[in-house]
């Protein structure tokens, strides 16, 4: 009796104790916007990783020299008030007078040099520096002027200096505390300061009164990690978060019908493709499949695949996407939307009869096409990879292929197939869609784990793109480049993913950025 009573009393004490220990949320009159982030969120040292969804958040906290305009049209000043090309290989940046980091350290030319020098050299495990290999030297002209010299004319200079790793960190503070210390207590120079950090859980940012371009309108922005999309939806409906991205298809109607919540959509800056095996040397393939000759080595087979796929239907199966033929998002001029994103052009590309003709040209009798081993991630970035792959497999079987589809969970797919270089015939993959680095990926110097292509003519066009500053001239080179891309059919582009977001429009006004970044520098309070 006594023991049982003690056990129950102890249990109640434990429960009450637990209730009392958990910290209480701050209650004040500040405007507060909570964004449901699917996580995980990586470290605050912005130079040490590539992960896009963490950089969304970091952009709230750090300034770059310049950054991509929200509407996708050009660049906007941040730490640099203005900038110009001095000549083909030198860019000059004029910094803002009196600008500081959150700790008071000056954002001057020396700080800029320290940052770019840091990011263009190896830091830890993530070799971000290769993206910055175009920089030859950073020269401090005076306290507020800095020159960046490139090795050769660099067509995507502005794009690259405003990409991952562009974030400015305070040199003196960083050197004092080291990388670990900095990740625990970072310091930036962006419009928001960091009020609270709970690693990979909750990041609370507060508007900085001293920001050079004025205090942001919303007082507090919180990135709250909520891994489960269904829990994000519930939190949004409960009024406990204000925005989520990647709204699952079944929840869209519910959210749209909810008071004060609206759905927004914009390119997710993500495209889904099929990778076809075009060689037997790259990655782990030679060890894993020593005697296997992929059918996709035959160009006719690859062309049969590309014409067998109804991209519009695949996009519909995905739930939020548009069929595409080229691997650059449609809002970039390099994506040639009228040619490769046009609905009719994409519809016409689907031609099962032509696919059968290509199979016949490859030596296969009608209905007796080769077996394709097809690997896919169950979800993939942007979702629905399994369902899309199943429908794609049915389309391929319809023209005569036999398809052996294997679905794996995301991490197994990465480890066993996509990043190990074990793509046997075909695999489904989701990739970003910017133009700047793309030509490099298919060049003779680039050896991906899943393909190795060296077409000297294509390579020469890629090289020319990289050094051609004039946009019109560059676009005509891109037209040639795309012809090779389509003809090679190693990467068979399927569709561009649309990000469907849900926002508390009762309280906030947000226009999605063209580049798909969920960063809230421009967030406004709704007109009441």
């Amino acid at each position: 009796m006594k023991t049982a009573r003690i056990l129950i009393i102890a249990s109640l004490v434990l429960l009450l104790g637990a209730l009392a220990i958990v910290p209480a949320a701050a209650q004040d009159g500040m405007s507060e916007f909570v964004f449901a982030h699917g996580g995980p969120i990586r470290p605050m040292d912005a130079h040490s990783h590539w992960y896009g969804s963490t950089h969304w958040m970091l952009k709230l906290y750090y300034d770059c020299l310049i950054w991509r305009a929200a509407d996708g049209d050009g660049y906007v000043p941040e730490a640099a008030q203005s900038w110009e090309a001095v000549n083909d290989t030198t860019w000059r940046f004029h910094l803002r007078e009196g600008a500081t980091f959150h700790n008071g350290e000056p954002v001057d030319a020396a700080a800029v040099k320290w940052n770019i020098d840091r990011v263009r050299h190896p830091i830890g495990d993530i070799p971000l520096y290769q993206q910055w290999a175009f920089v030859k030297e950073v020269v401090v002209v005076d306290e507020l002027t800095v020159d960046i010299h490139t090795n050769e004319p660099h067509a995507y200079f502005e794009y690259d200096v405003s990409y991952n790793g562009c974030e400015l960190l305070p040199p003196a503070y960083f050197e004092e505390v080291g990388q670990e210390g900095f990740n625990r207590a970072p310091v930036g120079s962006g419009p928001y300061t960091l009020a609270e950090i709970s690693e990979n859980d909750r990041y609370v940012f507060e508007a900085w009164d001293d920001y050079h371009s004025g205090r942001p309108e919303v007082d507090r922005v919180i990135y709250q990690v909520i891994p489960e999309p269904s829990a994000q939806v519930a939190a949004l409906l409960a009024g406990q978060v204000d925005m989520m991205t990647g709204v699952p298809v079944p929840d869209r109607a519910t959210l749209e019908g909810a008071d004060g919540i609206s759905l927004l959509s914009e390119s997710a800056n993500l495209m889904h493709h099929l990778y076809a095996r075009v060689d037997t040397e790259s990655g782990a393939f030679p060890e894993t499949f020593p005697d296997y000759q992929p059918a996709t080595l035959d160009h006719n087979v690859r062309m049969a695949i590309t014409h067998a796929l109804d991209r519009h239907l695949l996009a519909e199966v995905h739930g939020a996407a548009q069929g595409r033929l080229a691997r650059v998002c449609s809002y970039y001029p390099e994506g040639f939307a009228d040619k490769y994103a046009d609905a009719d052009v994409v519809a016409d590309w689907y031609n099962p009869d032509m696919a059968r003709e290509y199979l016949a040209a490859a030596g296969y009798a009608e209905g007796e096409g080769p077996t394709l081993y097809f690997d896919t991630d169950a979800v993939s970035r942007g979702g629905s990879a399994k369902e899309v792959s199943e429908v794609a497999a049915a389309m391929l079987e319809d023209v005569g292929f036999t398809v052996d589809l294997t679905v794996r969970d995301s991490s197994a797919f990465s480890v066993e197939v996509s990043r190990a270089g074990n793509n046997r015939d075909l695999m489904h993959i989701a990739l970003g869609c910017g133009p700047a680095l793309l030509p490099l990926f298919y060049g003779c110097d680039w050896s991906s784990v899943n393909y190795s292509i060296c077409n000297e003519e294509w390579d020469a066009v890629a090289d020319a793109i990289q050094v051609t500053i004039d946009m019109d001239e560059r676009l005509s080179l891109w037209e040639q480049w795309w012809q090779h891309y389509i003809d090679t059919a190693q990467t068979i582009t399927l569709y561009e993913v649309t990000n469907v977001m849900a926002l508390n429009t009762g309280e906030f006004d947000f226009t999605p950025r063209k580049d798909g970044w969920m960063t809230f520098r421009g967030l406004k309070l709704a007109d009441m």
Partner: protein
Amino acid sequence: MRGFFISRLAQLVVTMFIVSLAVFLIVRLSGDPILVLAPDFFSQEQIEEMRRFWGFDRPLAEQYVTFITRAITGDFGTSYLAKRPAMELIIERLGYTWMLAAAAAAIGVTIAIPLGVLSALKRNSLIDLVITLLSSLGTAMPSFWLGLMLIIIFSVHLRMLPAFGALEPKAIIMPAATLGVGMAARLSRMTRSAMLEVLSQDYVRTAHSKGLKQNIVVLRHALRNALIPIVTVFGLQLGWLLGGSVVVESVFSWPGLGRLMIDSINVRDNTVVQAGLFWFALTFILINYAIDVLYILLDPRIKFE
């Protein structure tokens, strides 16, 4: 008693050594973390560079020696993702998981023991049937589903409780209830069967025949003697709570060790996975030792051996 603790300490050391080896090997066999960490477009050279940086190009035995030598001092290495010591990340989260497990255990015990006793006393009655049905339901309900249902009811419709996080005291109620319900279901079944067995014993009949009141017979004579199997199951359930918290923490975005483990496993952040599994194992072993001590306190016939 001293001998008991020394022998248990020796067992603990041996068990933890075996756990460390198993954890190390399983984590390595599950795949190359570099392949998860590297961006999609990385070249083979860049991937090799990352592998060298993290020491995965070294022989497995050498990697284990380095791991165990550091682990003894509490250094499980640096998280590949957070770029901070793995143990530091674990310690930050451990308190939340313990807090959740304690609250869930409290809910579980508070519900299970009265219901189990009542069910045994009213054997084969409507009350027994209802309690049995509820226990079966509690056992069968996936915690993921139950958690979401609670969020929909109490956060979305009633707006009484927060849907996520650990920002205010009441935030613990739903995750603890989700975990506690499963525990209560299993524990109440065990309480019922242990009580039924004890209630049929001679000494209970003797107590009744002596004219003692029903509640004194039940609580002082029967329940006390039924507690040994109940405590055993309670100990096992505590271990289950730690494992179950992995799912519940994800549903409720509770910043505990379970969620850290899920994130780390998904991206093969081996240093954190190793440190986390080590802690789970250590906690589980210590709970079992505590249960052993509790046996002795409950039943004086059991001696420290």
